[in-house]
């Protein structure tokens, strides 16, 4: 058999990938505004933020003047205004998901608490941005732009108040204690509402001067639930509450606030109508938070990705320098030059950390870009629906169902070569807003939870590996790169804005949407095509794992367990949740491969990359292969457990099609030579049999599954050679003398 991977004499990584490489991988090489935002965020992160952490600012739970400086630095560097549209005083036109993702990534490279402080401000504005009335948008988005020196106004800073004290809102957002009722309603005037809301773990509450609070009606004159904007100057109680004693993200402010305030009904986010004397909010709290979280969760996923990639340089440096300085070692000796890098396991584990970081970043940035494409489509869809008078969830679903076939047709055409498809029809569907909306919606409903779930969950586990690689140093505050803090911080990222269970629950529904699965099927072929040209990427391995996942999801949806119970449904989390995890591995690995292909294709045009480009691509390709193998392994393990785990093991005394009595076997073998050498279960005439749980498992209808499982094992060929090559590159890559931020 020949090795499909490039040989070891090929060029290898010379320096750590720089901005030129990242800009191509994450597709913002033609966006100078974003490149500048990255630099601006980086200077705050590696300047003030790093200094604060190094000086111990994380040791307090309170919001201190030092931490307040952080907000000012972010205002000054343009970070606060990134989320705001130019017409309200911002400077980045169009959708800003990628921009915000890049900011969060840069800040989290040093400290995710700082990223959270920035993110929470955007989270507070998001309900208004997504669903607010034009007046609300103008007032709060405009007010959130940092006041210029000499400008006589205070900068608006918000908090997003959904979570409530136990036993109320947490993962379950319908058990709400926050209340709204009519306080005053004078004839012909705007109603005045009374809002009672207690929050738990509310970021920014310590210093916010407005909050978007989720509340339910406590009054027959108000229908359902809504989100409402509260201000610190409203009449009543505005108590920021006590700080949460959190172990992580201490550069952000988390409190349990108490609000009991009178506000005009115009503060209901998205407005309201009055029907038969009842105030009917245009959006329930659930509709608002759905629109918000589907975007902001992506950013959280990128925070963990940044941590993983930020760990690479400090670990390499620590390993190389580990034995220097004692006087006995001579420069030039392997122990002096390579230190712990002489040990294969240390190299391999760092490769795992690095590959996970690459895949997480690829997945997260793709999802952010997807939302940049999705945002204008959604606005156009809203406009169309308003024009056609389509209102309410049920009417909208009906409208979507009506274009489902056209959407499936579009997906089919899109994956045909341009010269083999009906160009006119394709064009027509491409320009059909609703078709495009449902196609992209199907993707975003999978990619957003997958990013949040995989990046933070697998990322947190992987950060532990990074910490381990630093030995005892790893769990001290002195660890370069703050790796110990980052490990703990990752756990919050896996929790807030919806813990992993929430993401798995969403995937349970969205990953079996036909429109998603149709696209997924095409990606399998796409991976094979990539593999044909670039065998070293692991794309073929991944394609087989994808087939296996697809087979399994189809099986689980139809099959029943040994007790006759349906396997795949929302309540059976033991089945659906692991499948959500498995899918996320696949999506992350696929996105990583696609990004490296982009780099290979576009990087050649950039003269700044000419030197060492081949080596960089070869190394990143090896990381893809490592990740594809790992993802496939996870998928294989998960699906095997699910497919077999719910069946009852055959027993010796039950129905056993493959069991033969020894005497029976002898008789058949005398007429059918060789029959007794086939894999049969033999029960001796004295009823004894081989020592095992029962006859080996052989269920009818599973042939394809077994075939794919077996094939997947073979598809791992070469993956470890790729890992060896990548590990060798770690010993040669040039790194800076010191980290570019203090500790």
């Amino acid at each position, binding site marked *: 058999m020949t090795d499909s991977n490039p040989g070891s004499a090929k060029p290898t990584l*010379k*320096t750590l990938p*720089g*901005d*030129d490489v990242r800009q191509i991988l994450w597709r913002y090489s033609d966006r*100078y*505004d974003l*490149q*500048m*935002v*990255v*630099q*601006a965020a980086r*200077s*705050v992160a590696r*300047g003030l933020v*790093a*200094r604060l952490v190094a000086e111990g600012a994380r040791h307090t739970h309170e919001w201190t003047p030092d931490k307040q400086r952080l907000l000012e*630095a972010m205002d*000054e*560097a*343009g970070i606060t205004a990134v989320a705001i549209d130019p017409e309200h005083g911002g*400077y980045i036109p169009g959708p800003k998901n990628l921009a915000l993702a890049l900011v969060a990534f840069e800040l989290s490279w040093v400290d995710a608490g700082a990223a959270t402080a920035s993110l929470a401000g955007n989270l507070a504005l998001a309900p208004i941005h997504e669903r607010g009335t034009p007046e609300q948008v103008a007032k709060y988005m405009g007010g959130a732009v940092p006041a210029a020196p000499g400008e006589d106004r205070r900068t608006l800073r918000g908090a997003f108040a959904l979570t409530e004290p136990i036993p109320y809102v947490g993962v379950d957002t319908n058990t709400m204690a926050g209340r709204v009722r009519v306080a005053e309603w004078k004839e012909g005037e705007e109603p005045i509402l009374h809002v009672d809301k207690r929050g738990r773990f509310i970021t920014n509450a310590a210093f916010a001067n407005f909050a978007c609070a989720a509340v339910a009606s406590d009054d027959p004159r108000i229908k359902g639930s809504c989100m409402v904007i509260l201000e610190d100057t409203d009449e009543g109680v505005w108590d920021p509450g006590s700080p949460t004693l959190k172990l992580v993200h201490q550069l952000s402010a988390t409190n349990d606030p108490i609000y009991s305030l009178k506000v005009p009904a115009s503060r209901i986010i998205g407005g309201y109508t009055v029907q038969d004397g009842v105030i009917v909010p245009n959006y329930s709290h659930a509709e608002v938070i759905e629109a918000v979280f589907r975007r902001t969760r992506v950013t959280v996923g990128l925070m963990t990705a940044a941590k993983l990639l930020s760990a690479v340089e400090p670990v390499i440096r620590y390993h190389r320098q580990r034995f220097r300085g004692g006087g006995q070692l001579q420069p030039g000796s392997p122990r002096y030059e390579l230190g712990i890098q002489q040990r294969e396991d240390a190299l391999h584990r760092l490769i795992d950390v690095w590959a996970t970081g690459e895949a997480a970043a690829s997945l997260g940035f793709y999802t952010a870009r997807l939302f940049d494409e999705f945002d204008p489509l959604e606005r156009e869809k809203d406009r169309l629906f308003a024009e056609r008078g389509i209102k309410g969830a049920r009417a909208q679903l009906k409208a979507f169902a009506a274009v489902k076939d056209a959407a499936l047709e579009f997906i089919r055409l899109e994956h045909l070569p341009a010269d083999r498809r009906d160009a006119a029809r394709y064009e027509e569907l491409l320009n059909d807003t609703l078709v495009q909306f449902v196609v992209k919606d199907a993707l975003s409903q999978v990619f957003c939870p997958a990013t949040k779930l995989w990046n933070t969950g697998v990322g947190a586990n992987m950060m532990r590996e990074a910490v381990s690689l630093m030995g005892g140093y790893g769990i001290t505050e002195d660890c370069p790169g703050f790796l110990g803090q980052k490990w703990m911080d990752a756990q919050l990222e896996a929790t807030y804005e919806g813990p992993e269970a929430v993401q798995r629950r969403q995937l349970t529904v969205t990953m079996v949407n036909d429109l998603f699965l149709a696209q997924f099927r095409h990606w399998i072929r796409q991976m094979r095509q990539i593999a044909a040209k670039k065998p070293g990427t692991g794309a073929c391995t991944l394609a087989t794992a994808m087939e296996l996942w697809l087979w399994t999801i189809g099986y689980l949806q139809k099959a029943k367990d040994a007790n006759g119970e349906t396997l795949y449904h929302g309540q059976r989390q033991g089945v659906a949740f692991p499948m959500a995890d498995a899918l996320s591995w696949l999506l992350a690995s696929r996105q990583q491969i696609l990004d490296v292909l982009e780099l290979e294709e576009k990087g050649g045009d*950039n*003269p*700044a*990359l*000419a*030197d*060492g480009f081949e080596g960089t691509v070869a190394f990143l390709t090896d990381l893809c292969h490592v990740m594809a193998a790992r993802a496939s392994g996870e998928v294989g393990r998960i699906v095997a457990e699910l497919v077999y785990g719910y069946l009852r093991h055959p027993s010796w005394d039950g129905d056993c099609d493959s069991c033969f009595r020894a005497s029976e076997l002898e008789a058949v073998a005398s007429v059918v030579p060789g029959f007794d050498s086939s894999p049969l279960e033999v029960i001796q005439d004295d009823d004894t049999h081989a020592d095992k749980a029962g006859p080996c498992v052989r269920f009818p209808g599973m042939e394809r599954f077994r075939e794919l499982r077996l094939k997947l094992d073979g598809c791992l060929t070469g993956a470890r050679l790729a890992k060896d090559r990548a590990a060798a590159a770690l010993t040669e890559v*040039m*790194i*800076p*003398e*010191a*980290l*570019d*931020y*203090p500790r």
Partner: protein
Amino acid sequence: MSNGYHIVVCGSLVPDPLQALEPVTTPDGPALKNESMLPSVLDPWAAHALYEAAHLAKTVPGSKVWLVSLGPKAKLQQLMMTVAQKAPFEFVAVDGSASGFTDSFETAQALAKAIESIAGLDRQRLLLFGGCSSASRDAGTTVGMVGALLGIEEQFLAVDEIVPQEDGSFRVKERVEGAQYLVSECAGAPAVLAWATGNLPEPPNNPQVGMTNMRTIMPALAKAQPAGNLRGSLRFESVETPTQRRETRVVKDAGIDEIARELADWIRG
């Protein structure tokens, strides 16, 4: 001064000083290992000159700032993603090596040529700014030679402060031996000011300023002329790094006293 100054800052990129800089021999002579792949920063002395120029332009109405950079085009573009955010300026690029292994005379010639061709530059109002030193070559001669090639006789080296006067003249503080300053009065432009560190902190990044600057930066990069041979007749016998062990630690914004104390402690052992 009624019309303001035309301030031209000469400055280009150098490898980020945190990088491991290792000399290697190439067919074209000495170079730094993986130099083109290392992240770069604006030469620190030139950066001070730029911040001082921006500050001066703000205080003297009618003034304008240009930044003239000789460096590899693609790397300059990446550098501008940061530098463009620091201060408003118009950009002029010359495509060539910014390596420390070029000759400062050839470099000065290329810069002078680029400055001569700046449209709208009033040479009578010209203040030529740059670094008195550089993190790459450190010849300490480039800016002076550019001035000489442009026929500017008033030259101030290692400048830490300029105080403009109402009548267009200005007072300059230059570093001299023994931590002393030489204070000079100059009747006005044209003059050369090669900056030491100045007194201004690095301005925070401001993407909005950056995006305004990008309007001239991209066209300037597109039409950047090649600088040609910058090594002249220069030959290097040998190139080596100092034998001292380098121990780098990043501490930002430490006070002078603190740094002095740490050094003294270190020397004492």
